[in-house]
């Protein structure tokens, strides 16, 4: 990044933002009380806390989306009135939401200048040429290379995110809030994002950064504020904290054993994939997994991990290759066939591929095994069904008001447990988990790791796709690394570490693959 050190920034930067004594309650339930936040000019300030700690409520207050009950907000030591998102934008506060919401049918330039289009003279006619030039200028400043005339719908998620950041900057932002900006991007794109963030810092723009990914926090954040249960806990320079200390602040107790011990007993080979190929997605994928084993699949987003798993599970047809269960070749052309072979697929992205958010906890839990709760294969036996659903709720400790609660209203961790419960109810032998802990808090993660280890301990075969190296390292007996749809390496537990996996995921394999 070619940004010169800015000498006008003093070491002890003044606060660009000071929030004091913020409280907010929703229909009697306190979401925040007595929370403070002080952000210095040009710093990356990480806001940490488990789901439900109050991070998003605080940020909604700051971006004018919800009114606060008490407390003051000062911008550059001036009392600010953030009564609407527009008021917040005008005061230089931009928020980039986790779920990007561009107008997909419009071009990049149109999206950036949406609502503030440059016009000819005093008319309302958009000066497209000027809009294009201004966009290019912004892109040049931030070292972004996206054609301003491309349609948003043609962009990758990472590119959309860059556009959103440019858009945020284009409001003359002093403070940019980024909510889980890396939830849908990986590797190189994250590095690019961080370069841009450092550029923004150099310009004196403060970034409030929300993420569940610890390694990122320590790579990018200058200061960390921790919230827990709607209360302010502490603010510390990032350099003074390490992973364990931060987790302790967040959960209020020490998670000494986030990962349960690995199951030592392995059985015979239960699942085998040979030369599986789907042109354009992945090629010649082969691996074997034993009973009782947790087999990891690592790689960057777009490496084809999810595609392989969905093909194995019968959601699409492979062009070549075969799948063997217990040594016998099986034809799996639909998820129903996969289920008959006692397989389960816990899909990535609960909301899109996993849950019917509009339905109840019970209806979601029993969906894949509904036939077991019928008479004559069709007529529902509610008593049996309710009993089974209650059993799973208790076993997995799903926090819910009851089996009839609508799934949409559960927290992310509990939603993920509902997906798990659905599959465990089928008593599967081969369990494929695709990003099983994405977007859920540390407490729930630890519980899910425990469940995975238990299942392996019962002699089941586990295949886990994950972008979080930490959990691959913590849970897996072996790991397969994919790069651009091809196997780039396979490592035994004794041979893998963060570095070799990351290298293989980038397609850079020097270590010998076994």
């Amino acid at each position: 990044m070619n940004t010169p050190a800015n000498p006008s920034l003093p070491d002890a930067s003044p606060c660009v933002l000071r929030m004091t004594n913020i409280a907010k309650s929703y229909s009697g339930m306190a979401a925040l009380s007595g929370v403070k936040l002080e952000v210095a000019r040009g710093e990356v300030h990480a806001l940490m806390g488990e789901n439900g700690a109050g991070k998003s409520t605080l940020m909604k207050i700051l971006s004018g989306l919800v009114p606060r009950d008490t407390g003051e907000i000062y911008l550059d030591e001036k009392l600010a009135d953030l009564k609407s998102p527009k008021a917040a934008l005008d005061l230089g506060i931009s928020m980039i939401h986790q779920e990007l919401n561009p107008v997909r049918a419009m071009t990049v330039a149109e999206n950036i200048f949406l609502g503030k289009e440059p016009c000819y003279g005093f008319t309302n006619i958009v000066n497209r040429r000027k809009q294009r030039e201004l966009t290019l200028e912004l892109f040049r400043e931030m070292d972004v290379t996206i054609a301003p005339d491309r349609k948003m719908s043609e962009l990758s998620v990472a590119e959309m995110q860059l556009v959103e950041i440019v858009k945020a900057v284009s409001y003359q932002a002093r403070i940019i809030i980024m909510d889980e900006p890396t939830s849908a991007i990986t590797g190189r794109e994250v590095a690019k994002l961080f370069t841009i963030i450092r550029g923004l810092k150099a310009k004196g723009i403060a970034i409030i950064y929300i993420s569940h990914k610890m390694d990122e926090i320590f790579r990018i954040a200058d200061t960390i504020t921790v919230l827990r249960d709607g209360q302010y806990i502490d603010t510390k320079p990032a350099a003074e904290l390490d992973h364990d200390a931060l987790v302790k602040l967040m959960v209020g107790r020490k998670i000494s054993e986030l990962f349960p011990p690995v199951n030592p007993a392995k059985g015979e080979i239960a699942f085998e994939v040979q030369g599986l190929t789907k042109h354009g997605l992945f090629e010649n994928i082969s691996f074997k997994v034993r009973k009782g084993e947790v087999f990891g699949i690592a790689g960057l987003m777009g490496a084809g991990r999810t595609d392989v798993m969905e093909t194995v599970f019968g959601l699409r047809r492979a062009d070549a290759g075969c799948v063997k269960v217990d040594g016998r070749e099986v034809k799996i052309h639909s998820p129903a066939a996969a289920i008959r072979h006692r397989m389960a697929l816990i899909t990535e992205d609960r909301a899109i591929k996993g849950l019917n958010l509009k339905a109840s906890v019970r209806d979601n839990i029993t969906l894949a095994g509904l036939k077991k709760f019928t008479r004559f294969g069709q007529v529902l036996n509610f008593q049996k069904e309710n009993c089974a659903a209650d059993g799973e709720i208790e076993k997995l400790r799903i926090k819910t008001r009851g089996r009839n609660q609508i799934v949409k209203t559960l927290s992310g961790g509990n939603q993920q447990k509902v997906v798990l419960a659905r599959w465990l109810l089928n008593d599967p032998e081969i369990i494929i988990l695709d990003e099983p802990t994405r977007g859920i808090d540390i407490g729930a993660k630890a519980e899910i790791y425990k469940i995975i280890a238990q299942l392996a301990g019962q002699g089941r075969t586990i295949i886990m796709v994950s972008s979080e190296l930490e959990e691959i390292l913590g849970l897996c007996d072996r790991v397969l690394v994919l790069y651009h749809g091809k196997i780039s390496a396979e490592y035994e537990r004794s041979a893998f570490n963060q570095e070799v996996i990351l290298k293989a995921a980038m397609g850079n394999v020097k270590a010998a693959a076994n």
Partner: protein
Amino acid sequence: METQTNSLQKTAAFFSKYGIFFAFVLLAGILAVTSPPFRTWSNIQNILQQISMNGIIAIGMTLVIITAGIDLSVGSVLALSAVVATSFAHPDQHALIVPLAMGILVGLVCGTVNGILIAKKRLAPFIVTLGMMTVARGVALVYTGGRPVINLSDSFDAIGGGSVCGIPFPSLIFLGVILLGVFILHFTRFGRYVYAVGGNELAAKVSGVNTDRVLISVYAFAGALAGVAGIVLSSRIMSGPPATGTGYELDAIAAVVIGGTSLSGGIGSIAGTIVGVLIIGVMNNGLDLLNVTSYWQQIVKGVIIVLAVLLDKKSKH
């Protein structure tokens, strides 16, 4: 104090959940007070008769809309079923079962074609059923040369004209369809899959649900019920008119939506649809009795439909 607010909240929740039902009771109550002819037994019989057709169609439409679909073809399919059924119902031609089976079969076939195009070819339900709406109407006109089929057997006419203990046959058929709909949607595995497909088709598929089969069956069911409605209508007016049934799809959709079924899929119930059908029926009847001209009736109906959905939406937020 706390328990008091709690019970208040519960009462509010109860009213908002069953708001549409109370709206219906209110509407019927007002009409019963203001219009003496409204509260006569013969008028109630009349209403029950009038709502039957829309009701039968609306039950099928409920399932379709829960899958996040729509069926615009039911009015035309009703007409096609009516003309085909009546063409087999001339005196001393066939046993009564033949025209009935033919009518339902025609609806079933049309619905199945809709379903296959929507599920297998991934075409938008709006487009597919809009096409079927035109095609079915065209076939009905070609089949009859544009003239109503007349000269029907007495047994066929009895379906629409008869009654048991003062309850008209069409209403009994509606009742049967309600029971069937409630059973299918709320008491079977298939019914659960209908909600699952509407709530999140991909998630249902991953869970092993044959989503194509569910969609095809739902449209086939809606088509078959349009066939039943066609039989009831033609036997009531004692002829098979190829041009009938226009706009019936809109009344059915209105009833379903008033009943709280979400056009975006995954949410809805037969009970809600029944209330929706009753509201539309009672409103039509009441406006007639109050001597509101049909021009004004359209305006009032439109406003009430939007108002009902608006209230329903408000109560849920």
